[in-house]
């Protein structure tokens, strides 16, 4: 995790658009008491990229074919291959601000 000092002013991209920065704990936009409490509970945890099953194992066991078929059936064709890089700070900000509502969720990122 980066501990670079806070820039006095948010940098701008070459196009002049303001660049959002999330490089250190101080960049997290935590506001409420609850958000700060959740942060205290999470701050010492390790954060890892979402792990998965080895594609070689899937192939060797025939599960590559099985999974393709199953995930097609349950509507996860574009969901199940989770290969994005993970970010500790991005995840922290999301989890600290996540709220459950009857019809969905609310959360903040970079605000």
């Amino acid at each position, binding site marked *: 995790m980066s501990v670079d000092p806070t820039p006095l002013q948010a940098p701008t991209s070459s196009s002049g658009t303001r660049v959002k920065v*999330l490089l250190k704990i101080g960049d997290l936009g935590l506001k409420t008491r609850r958000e700060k409490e959740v942060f205290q509970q999470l701050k010492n945890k390790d954060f890892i990229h979402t792990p998965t099953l080895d594609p070689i194992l899937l192939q060797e066991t*025939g599960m590559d074919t099985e999974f393709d078929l199953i995930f097609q*059936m349950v509507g996860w064709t574009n969901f199940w291959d*989770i290969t994005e890089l993970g970010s500790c700070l*991005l995840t922290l900000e*999301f*989890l600290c601000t*996540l709220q459950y509502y009857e019809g969905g969720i609310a959360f903040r990122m970079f605000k």
Partner: protein
Amino acid sequence: MLSWRELSDHLGSSSRCILDIDSDLPNFERHQFWREISRDEFYGQAQTSDMEHPTLMMCHKWLGYNLFHRDDIRKVRVGDLQLLYAAINKTPISPVTLLVSHLLSITSLQGPVGCTSLITRLASSLNLLENLSLEFIDELRIYHGFDTFRQARMLKKEGNVMYMLYDNKGKIRLPNPNVGLYVVQNYLIEIAVTPVNQRAP
């Protein structure tokens, strides 16, 4: 605020997926379903190894690593059962309500936080990563391969041949098209009558 449907769409589930799992799987009953896929009479201290169908076992491991990451993924939770039930019944189903319940419980869980890639996917789909200076985790992604399952005594190799192990009951060879999830009529494996020599063509 994101509705369940919006969240589901942003994470990549099909728009035809059901969202309200409890209401939209009206025929699901945990004890009855557990009896179909294990030799237990009731759903109680259910574990992955109590299942017998190799695809269901591997699917449950996938759910534990990818969606509901926690320190001990052997326990079969009701949400896991609902997703496996939907898989067997070919029901398009979104996991988002279960996923959010899991995310809200992370503060009380042991072990590392493993949902990070899903959060990146959500932020990316919402175009929140544009013009953002952000660092990603340095360590490499963990891929659970043969060694993980060998240590768990679920799989073994004899030469280049892979077997799924069933405690003292025996083993079946994988890949095994005779026990495909949508091939079998029964999710309990009769090892004595299941050919061990079948391989995918």
